[in-house]
């Protein structure tokens, strides 16, 4: 038995021809190349037609996941508009939970945070989906409770803090604020400030045990709890939004190592007491329950963080994946008890029924367990899609039928262990690659780099084309402009262009933008002066300098509200070391 034969068996065990209105099956089925635009549209329409608040939540989930997978089209846009209009709003947050006849916005039942971005992009029902009001309403709930919320209703002023857990309430509330910040970084800047300076600080003062991990409920209930698989994804997003800098970041890396790696399979998140589980266990000290979703989340997170780990931790991780008994063999083994050897199906926890939904979860876990990072690794965008779903965007594909795998790569060698013998390939540069395997999955027939990594997405390490220096050169350049006439903008909003699906009329791709704040010097033509070094010349309307990897087509908005389109990007380097990117900018005619 090989990993690929195990995957083949489980794929065959699932009836893919019907999605069963199961949006998790669709979500992971898209990664497995089983579903596409038509399935997402059909499911969104089905949910919108039902028109209950829970169905609108489901519709929002499927629409957002479609966009994340690069699946987009006019029919889906129609459904997104229906969801935006149909959803019941409690002032500016959606009702996604109800108890005792009262509606709430629930921190970990939402899965709809992307709808704020849709409303803005489509200019649909923006008065209700106002991210500026929404973050203030969410912040107020946190202020009143003194920590993150489980749910709140801003209309009635009702707030519930549940048990003040590190992930469920605090990280999820932080994540909601972070998402709202990203919808409008200029006007919602305080949402990031509150998430970082209050909620993240609180997590480190109350939930950090002072040594090596975040406790489940702080001192009220200590120990390692399974949401440690997802917690680092959110905090990594926070750090990226904060310019790849975050106080107490070292706590998170210590937590990951202590929780999953330092003790190998005896590490506390793989165990109940001293009993090995070989998958994520609910609570190390007090609850013996194996978690399928948590296990997938753990392997997404570990792959994402691999490039930041020290050598010993990297070795510990690869030993889990590729030891004498491999992670995938343990996952389908009797001890983990998540897999049924007869039906070839997985289940949610180590008791109860096996299901197609959780087989889809298990299949994606097996896909990731076949990839063993070496000097190279996976360059995974950090995005918690909803509660306990750390999502894989369209950089990922496992197409068993055509023996094709698509992955985002940090350059270096990576080992693949799907077949009876392993195969290692050395990737020469960062990027998204497609690999075609032979029939036995023991050779890689063909490798094709199919794209660059999108620098506007969040990662554990900022994407750049060159090794980055410290920013002294950039600061030196900035300082030259201080005190000169026409002092340049420094804090600039970047609208990173990304392309959705083909337009139904022209067949060109529909454009959209992601906003973020970056440091950039913009030197308009009228302010050209001696502060520009020899060799720099404003050839269009302005010249831009930044250390953030921008692309042509991106827009920059300076402090005065002027909008500039990036026409060219040229790295200023010495050898392979980046100083900054130099951009030719064209001013767009209408501000705002």
């Amino acid at each position, binding site marked *: 038995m090989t990993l690929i034969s195990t995957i083949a068996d489980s794929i065959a065990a699932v009836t893919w021809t019907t999605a069963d209105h199961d949006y998790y099956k669709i979500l992971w089925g898209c990664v497995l190349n089983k579903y596409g635009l038509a399935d997402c549209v059909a499911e969104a329409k089905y949910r919108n037609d039902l028109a209950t608040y829970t169905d609108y939540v489901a519709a929002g989930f499927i629409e957002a996941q479609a966009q994340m997978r690069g699946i987009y089209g006019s029919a889906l846009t129609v459904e997104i508009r229906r969801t935006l209009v149909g959803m019941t709003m409690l002032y500016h947050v959606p009702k996604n939970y109800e108890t005792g006849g009262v509606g709430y916005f629930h921190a970990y039942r939402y899965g709809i945070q992307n709808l704020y971005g849709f409303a803005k992009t489509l200019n649909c029902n923006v008065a209700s989906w106002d991210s500026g009001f929404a973050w203030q309403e969410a912040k107020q709930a946190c202020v009143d409770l003194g920590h993150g919320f489980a749910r709140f209703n801003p209309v009635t002023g009702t707030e519930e803090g549940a048990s003040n857990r590190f992930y469920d309430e605090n990280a999820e509330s932080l994540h909601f604020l972070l998402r709202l910040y990203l919808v409008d970084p200029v006007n919602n800047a305080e949402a990031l400030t509150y998430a970082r300076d209050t909620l993240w600080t609180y997590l480190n003062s109350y939930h950090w045990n002072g040594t090596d991990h975040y406790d489940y409920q702080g001192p009220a209930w200590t120990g390692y709890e399974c949401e440690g698989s997802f917690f680092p994804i959110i905090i990594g997003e926070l750090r990226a939004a904060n310019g790849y800098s975050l106080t107490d970041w070292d706590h998170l890396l210590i937590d990951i190592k202590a929780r999953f790696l330092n003790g190998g399979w005896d590490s506390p998140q793989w165990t109940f007491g001293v009993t090995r589980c070989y998958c994520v266990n609910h609570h190390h000290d007090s609850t013996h329950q194996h978690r399928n979703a948590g296990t997938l989340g753990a392997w997404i997170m570990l792959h994402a963080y691999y490039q930041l780990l020290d050598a010993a931790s990297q070795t510990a991780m690869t030993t889990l994946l590729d030891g004498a008994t491999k992670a995938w063999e343990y996952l389908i083994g009797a001890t983990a008890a998540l897999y049924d050897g007869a039906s070839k199906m997985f289940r949610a926890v180590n008791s109860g029924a096996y299901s197609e939904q959780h087989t889809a979860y298990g299949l994606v876990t097996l896909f990731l367990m076949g990839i063993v990072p070496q000097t190279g690794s996976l360059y995974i965008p950090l995005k918690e899609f909803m509660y306990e779903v750390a999502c894989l965007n369209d950089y990922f594909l496992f197409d068993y039928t055509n023996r094709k795998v698509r992955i985002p790569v940090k350059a270096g060698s990576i080992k693949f262990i799907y077949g009876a013998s392993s195969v290692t390939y050395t990737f020469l540069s960062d990027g998204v690659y497609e690999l075609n395997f032979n029939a036995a999955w023991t050779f890689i027939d*063909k490798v094709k780099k199919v794209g*660059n990594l999108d620098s506007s997405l969040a990662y554990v390490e900022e994407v750049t084309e060159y090794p980055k220096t410290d920013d002294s050169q950039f600061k030196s350049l900035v300082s030259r402009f201080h005190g000169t006439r026409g002092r340049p903008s420094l804090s600039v909003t970047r609208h990173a262009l990304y392309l959705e699906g083909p337009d139904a009329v022209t067949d060109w*791709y529909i454009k959209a933008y992601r906003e973020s704040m970056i440091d950039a010097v913009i030197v308009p033509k009228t302010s050209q002066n001696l502060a520009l070094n020899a060799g720099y010349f404003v050839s269009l309307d302005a010249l831009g300098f930044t250390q953030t990897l921008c692309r042509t087509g991106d827009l920059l908005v300076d402090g005065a509200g002027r909008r500039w389109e990036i026409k060219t990007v040229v790295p200023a380097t010495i050898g392979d070391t980046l100083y900054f990117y130099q951009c*030719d900018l064209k001013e767009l005619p209408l501000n705002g």
Partner: protein
Amino acid sequence: MVDDARYNTKVYLKAYLNNANLTEDNDIYYSGAAGTADAGGSNTTTIDTERTEAMDYWNGYYIKYGSGPNAGCERLITDFDSAIDKLWHDAFPYAVATGDTYVISKISTQVSFIVAYGNPDYALERVFIDKVVDLAFSIGTPDTEGLPVGIGYLEKVPITIWTIDKTGITGTELRWKAEAELRRVCEAYPLGSLRDTEKISDNEKNLGSTILYSVTHVMRYKRYAI
């Protein structure tokens, strides 16, 4: 009155271009090579005394083995030293053995391309970089000129081909291939009179780290009145 298809020239042409064949088998510029490995190769090198081409000639091509332990595998050639008849390529799973047969080609699969109307309202090169497209055909708005009553119309359709440099093939080479295919497609287009194409522009636009290649042809033909 003219035939209905006149009003759908863009649609018809798009459908034809969507079937463009841009694989190496219609490649009129590159013949590639085939050979048999001599002794001394490894998993990252192939030696063949038959390789007498100029230094670095095969850089950027792909080598695919048809026999031996690497049969079916294809790798990018990174260097060629004609003095010692040696090719360096990305690593194969196994060492190349004496007698293993191979072919060298420029592109071994269908070029990834799209056919669209007009130009997008954003930086065009992002289509290539973000959407993994190798080539784009852009069909412009036809210009129609009336002929004497009862004869029909003279129709001119601008078609632009856009490319960038890709691993293994330059944007210029891709553009040449697409031009050849465009001529073939225009000749196969079934409606109206004999079609000819006129090249009206040929550009290379340097965008810093990317060069955007384009060429615009005008397909010209008569549409007859019915």
